[in-house]
């Protein structure tokens, strides 16, 4: 739920970097030693050369921008919708009971299965990407918010009631502080899922972005270029996760799960 305490220590960062370097080294060695054919998995050095060419291509940066736009917009919509719906459903027992089975029915439907519907509704542009991203990310947030609200301490809740706090004050001072760590977890999960879906949508539908560039490289048998773009997608995921963790720590500086880190 919360970042492992060790993540902030410099030693851990070095270890993480070493792991990444180890992976790159493995990819360099595997094709060179003939374990896999270099035609299908080019060595890291070859991928990096293709990467350098990509970075010099204006179209690549436009594609990156398109992907990030789809990701950010989709994530924002999903988080706002998830939090609002979660607080509403979670704090009204009747709604909670009425929607529980519907949520469990809709949640496991893979976003990718909605592609034909998305194209039919929004064409092959940003709209389709957004539909898939929002659909996938929304449930991550919603479910966490629901858990969070369920977690409210009954004593606190009863105290608030006996002090005659209004609805808004209850949401603000009782619900929200309890739910926030859960919301943050939901946002962090949603941020990664949103990136996966943004790229998948582009890959499958062909809406402009990194994904469609990967698809073109794939159909063109341009293997090093394809891996270069996949590497970018991976780095993007890493950065997004790092950013989400930072936001989580800042927003929860008061919470024991984060305060605990400093003590250690």
């Amino acid at each position, binding site marked *: 739920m919360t970042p492992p305490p060790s993540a902030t220590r410099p030693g851990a960062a070095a270890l993480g970097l070493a792991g990444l370097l180890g992976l790159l080294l493995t990819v360099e060695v595997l094709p060179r030693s003939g374990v896999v054919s270099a*035609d299908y998995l080019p060595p890291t050095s070859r991928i990096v050369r293709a990467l350098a060419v990509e970075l010099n291509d204006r179209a690549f940066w436009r594609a990156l921008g398109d992907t990030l736009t789809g990701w950010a917009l989709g994530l924002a919509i999903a988080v706002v919708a998830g939090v609002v719906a979660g607080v509403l459903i979670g704090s009204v027992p009747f709604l909670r009971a009425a929607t529980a089975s519907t949520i469990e029915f809709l949640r496991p439907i893979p976003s990718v299965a909605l592609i*034909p519907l998305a*194209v*039919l509704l929004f*064409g092959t542009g940003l709209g389709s990407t957004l539909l898939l991203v929002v659909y996938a990310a929304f449930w991550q947030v919603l479910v966490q918010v629901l858990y969070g609200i369920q977690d409210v301490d009954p004593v606190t809740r009863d105290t608030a009631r006996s002090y005659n706090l209004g609805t808004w004050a209850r949401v603000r001072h009782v619900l929200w502080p309890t739910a926030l760590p859960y919301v943050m977890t939901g946002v962090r999960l949603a941020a990664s899922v949103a990136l996966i879906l943004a790229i998948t949508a582009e890959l499958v539908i*062909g809406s402009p972005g990194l994904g469609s560039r990967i698809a*073109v490289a794939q*159909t*063109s048998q*341009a293997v090093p270029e394809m891996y270069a773009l996949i590497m970018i997608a991976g780095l993007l995921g890493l950065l997004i996760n790092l950013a989400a963790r930072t936001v989580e720590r800042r927003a929860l500086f008061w919470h024991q799960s984060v305060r605990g880190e400093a003590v250690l």
Partner: protein
Amino acid sequence: MRRLLTVIAVAALTVGGLTACSDSESTGGGDPAAGGSGKTTAVKVGVIPIVDVAPIYLGKEKGFYEKHGIGLTLTPAQGGAAIVPGVVSGDFQFGFSNVTSLLVAQSKKVPLKAVANGVASTGEEGADFGGITVKKDSPLRSAADLEGKKVAVNTLKNIGDTSVKASVEKAGGDPSRVEFVELPFDQMPAALDAGQVDAAWVVEPGLATIKAQGGRVIASNYVDVAPDLTVAMYFTSTAYAKQSPEVVKAFQDATRESLAYADSHPDEVRRVITTYTKIPEATLKNVTLPKWPAEPNRSSIDTLAELGRQDGLFTEVPDLDELLP
């Protein structure tokens, strides 16, 4: 072309409502009564970024579409799963699809209308832009040897397996004994090399890649179906065909011109391919270009329809007169 069946099911359910909405909206886009008066209509075409669609890219570059009053936008999409609903909903005015997929769609009452030729087989055995390939040291010599073997096609129940079966039959084998597996074209060279499949039906640039690894073409399935087989066509929705016949006419004329130009300028084709694909230079040099006749070959489409019927691809026999231009 992948997952076309799912798409069609969804498309068929939603078509009525959606075309009703998009009809009223799309009239603002541009007046189709442009004729030659210098006014251009914005037209979006869904294409697959492969060698086959080079003429439309070339024609756009050469100004053939502009000359006919069409402001062309080409949107690369990943196959029929995105293109067919895109055309049906009016997001694209035209799309590119293989003929068998169009036949299947027609038989399922998806409101599509083929308007212009797309791409055709070279008609030369062993020198087509697609073929049945095996790896270097494979004992398979002809399509008849595929009996009991595993053959990769990009989409099951489509033009790949029906045409491969035609090859097997022609070579004297029993097509019902061939085992087909679905695999994207781009993964076929690796799968063939690793022995995961015994043979692969592949088109360019995968074909050039396999040949470069020493693989062999044992049969040209498109050639075995019919002489000068029409493989793919550009299509529109029946709603758009009815609503904007002038634009359709202009698109047909410009496409005819583009196809003829591409067919007689292979060097320019190879150059334009580098603008929308990433095919490596070394591969592109060895790519066999298809033929781009200006008109579809009706009798070859009849044959494809018959093969599809034999293979049970259609629930109802497609109405070719209604589908074709």
